[in-house]
């Protein structure tokens, strides 16, 4: 894999001109660095998924290890999904190729590759659909836009369905609401029928199935890690916390992505949650069995999503909690908001979520019984239940990145902003066409945050980074806040590359900094052990 070029160079080389030859004739670029590694056999085996070979293989290989009857498998799988998903059928039929979606995709903007236009990404499937499932396509072939399924088409699918982060930005602009996330999901499901998928997704899925979380943290280690944060919190605030694990009879089960337990800066967000719950005296417990909010099953198949998600309700039932509180995570909330109750409901535990502190009943979560932490905190703020000193975040000039799924698959837009505005004094929005429902993906969502495709990720994340850069230069923004664990993992390298001098934080890290705890010592450090009264870094970049 070649060294990543300098930012100026990478930016300069973005070419939006279209090739001479029609896209059907342009082979996908499957050179090293342009694809994520395929799934290791042990993970497929553990999950009981199709696995045509036990050998190591690479997408760069000319011949792929696929079963002899692969065409039949794909055809049957396609047919099955057309019956199961009206979305797929409609989206195969109604596109008029108006081009409104073309320049809305962060991967297209960053790479200039025409097949990253949502319309062409969908045509990759549509062309096969026409040939196999429509009268006109069977008779007219290429004139009607049909083409036979070949090994090259399969390679194209693998390349481009793993260059889509299922962020749904294109579906905002489509006059028929065609959602490329649906297309990509179907494409990935079909590829998985042949055992073609990527390790960065299936290894977390296998881990999650076994240990309850993507990172494969076993129960004792999970507890140790959280205890370790409590030590840090005690050192910073003087307050001793004693969170409980798998405790029956707790009122609330708290579930957050395991990334928050595992890696900076998510860990600081975790510390923020713990401080908040202590501040409130909340009767809650963590679970080591349901120790993952995220769901890499979503990036594999609806079946895998359901298998992994089932732990949440099972654990809530076993522990006898009243409802579930969920941490900051993007795709986790797509699953909870749009899929969970349908897949694993109806719930047979607890009651409609009610804040024990304010008495607010979350009617909007009556069926799933799961509340987003920023909904919960925004409610606390409204009722003045938190003692805050927002000046502790004064060394941070903050902007907010709407994560794709909470914005476009949930509509969670103002809750995080209400929290942010209460806990920090310097908050600036990015330009309006890059936030809220028009937000840009971090470039690494849907299981693509793997090292081997770093250059692609940097290109995909460029539109987001470029908007951050704008507020960085205009307002001196040095902190990018977000409510997504993948963001917290993916945005730091993105910022280091395109906008050095901007750090990444979860919202509840800022909450944790601002909270005035009972019996706390004088706070001189934030949750990162950095001094509160540091000079701002406005001259760091200029």
């Amino acid at each position, binding site marked *: 894999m070649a060294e990543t070029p300098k930012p100026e160079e990478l930016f300069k080389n973005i070419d939006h001109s279209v090739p001479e030859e029609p896209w059907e004739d342009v082979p996908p670029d499957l050179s090293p660095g342009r694809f994520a590694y395929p799934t290791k056999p042990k993970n497929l085996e553990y999950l009981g998924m199709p696995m045509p070979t036990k050998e190591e293989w690479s997408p760069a290989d000319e011949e792929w290890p696929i079963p002899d009857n692969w065409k039949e498998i794909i055809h049957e799988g396609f047919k099955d999904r057309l019956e*199961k*998903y009206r979305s797929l059928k409609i989206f195969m039929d109604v596109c008029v190729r108006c081009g409104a979606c073309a320049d809305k995709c962060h991967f297209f903007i960053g790479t200039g590759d025409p097949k990253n236009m949502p319309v062409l990404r969908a045509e990759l499937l549509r062309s096969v659909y026409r040939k196999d499932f429509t009268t006109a396509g069977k008779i007219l072939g290429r004139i009607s836009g049909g083409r036979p399924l070949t090994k090259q088409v399969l390679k194209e699918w693998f390349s481009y369905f793993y260059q889509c982060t299922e962020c749904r930005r294109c579906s905002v602009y489509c006059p028929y609401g065609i959602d490329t996330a649906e297309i990509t999901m179907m494409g990935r499901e079909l590829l998985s029928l042949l055992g073609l998928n990527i390790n960065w997704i299936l290894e977390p899925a296998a881990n999650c199935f076994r*240990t309850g979380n993507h990172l494969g943290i076993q129960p004792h280690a999970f507890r140790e890690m959280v205890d370790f944060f409590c030590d840090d919190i005690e050192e910073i605030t003087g307050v001793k916390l004693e969170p409980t694990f798998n405790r029956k009879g707790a009122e609330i089960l708290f579930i957050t992505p395991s990334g928050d337990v595992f890696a900076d800066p998510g860990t600081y967000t975790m510390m923020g949650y713990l401080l908040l719950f202590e501040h409130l005296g909340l009767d809650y417990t963590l679970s080591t069995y349901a120790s993952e909010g995220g769901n890499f099953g979503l990036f594999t198949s609806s079946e895998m999503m359901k298998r992994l998600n089932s732990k949440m309700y099972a654990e809530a039932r076993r522990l006898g909690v009243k409802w579930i509180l969920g941490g900051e995570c993007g795709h986790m909330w797509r699953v909870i908001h749009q899929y969970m109750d*349908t897949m694993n409901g109806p719930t047979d535990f607890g009651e409609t979520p009610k804040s024990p502190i304010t008495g607010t009943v979350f009617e*909007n979560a009556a069926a799933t019984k799961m509340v987003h932490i920023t909904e919960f905190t925004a409610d606390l703020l409204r009722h003045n239940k938190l003692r805050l000193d927002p000046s502790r975040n004064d060394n941070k000039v903050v902007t907010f990145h709407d994560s794709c799924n909470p914005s476009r698959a949930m509509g969670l837009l103002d809750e995080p902003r209400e929290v942010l505005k209460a806990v920090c004094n310097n908050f600036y929005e990015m330009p309006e066409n890059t936030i809220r429902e028009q937000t840009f993906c971090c470039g690494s969502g849907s299981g693509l945050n793997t090292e081997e495709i770093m250059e692609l990720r940097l290109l995909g994340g460029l539109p987001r980074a470029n908007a951050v850069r704008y507020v960085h230069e205009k307002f001196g923004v040095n902190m990018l806040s977000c409510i997504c664990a993948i963001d917290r993992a993916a945005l730091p390298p993105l910022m280091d590359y395109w906008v050095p001098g901007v750090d990444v934080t979860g919202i509840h890290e800022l909450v944790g900094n601002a909270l005035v705890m009972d019996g706390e010592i004088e706070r001189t450090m934030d949750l990162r052990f950095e001094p509160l009264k540091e000079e701002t870094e406005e001259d760091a970049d200029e």
Partner: protein
Amino acid sequence: MKAAYLYSLIAVVVLGLIAYAGVEAAGLDVLFGVIIPYLAFIVFLVGFANKVLDWSKSAVPFKIPTTMGQQKSLPWIKQNKIDSPYTTGQVVIRMLLEILLFRSLFKNTRTGFSGERISYKWVIWLWLFAILFHYSFLVVVIRHLRFFAEPVPFFVNFLEQIDGMLQVLLPHMFLSGFALLAGTLLLLVRRVFLPKIVYISRPADYFPLFLITGIAVTGLMMRYLAKVDVIRIKELTMGLATLQPSIPEGGISGLFYVHLFFVSILVAYIPFSKIMHIGGIFLSPTRNTANDTRARRHVNPWNYPVKTHTYEEYEEEFRDKMKEAGIPVEKE
């Protein structure tokens, strides 16, 4: 894909010539005036119904609205009722705005690179062309009801009065015909000159545009240049509408048959083409479902049990480690 639009253009011209020669030279008035229009209409009805039935046969396993505004959550946070609809009524409003005003297309932006900045400018052209095209087409279609009903329905006369606003300046002129031609040509120009749009366009994108151009041009020619015999045309069309088809005495100009043939082709082509977006938009799950999935359970008709990893299996594997770490277990 230059070939794509040339082929489509040639196809339309050839179709026009076939109809003209068929009637003028071969005397196939009945074929082009009666048989083909009826066949086309039947193909349209059956094909359209089939397609919509086929769509509705597929399940809607999940509610997947694209939310484009604030969800309904806490009482003091203002919900965006149109873009994040919570009730059926709100969904209906969202759908109406989408179908009647092309609301999503109205949001269109253009991405531009200037120096080291990427900018996203609001652009209205595509929306404007689309509105011009679709609404003028609608008016033209409604105006043509005059040929299929006697007496002419009041709303057709009313619409013609509005459509003919400019008649003070230009006698007997309807705006809609010219607007349709302009809208079609503008959409065509995009597809012929914008490199990105050329790249994604297929013959199936050019063909209907050329065909509609043909329909508009022949229509305008009949009205303003060739002065065809409208009385005879109405005799034919009323015959078709009342299922008593006949070719009027003395015949009608070949130009009319070209127009009618184009229309027949278009009508028969609809169910097999992207023009089915007329029906599809109503069924698009990202637009026609409510954002209420945490409050109200949506049922997936094919939801099936899956293999899960139960707590018991989990505890079985990790019991000792859990006990050691002071985590409660079910079985000591």
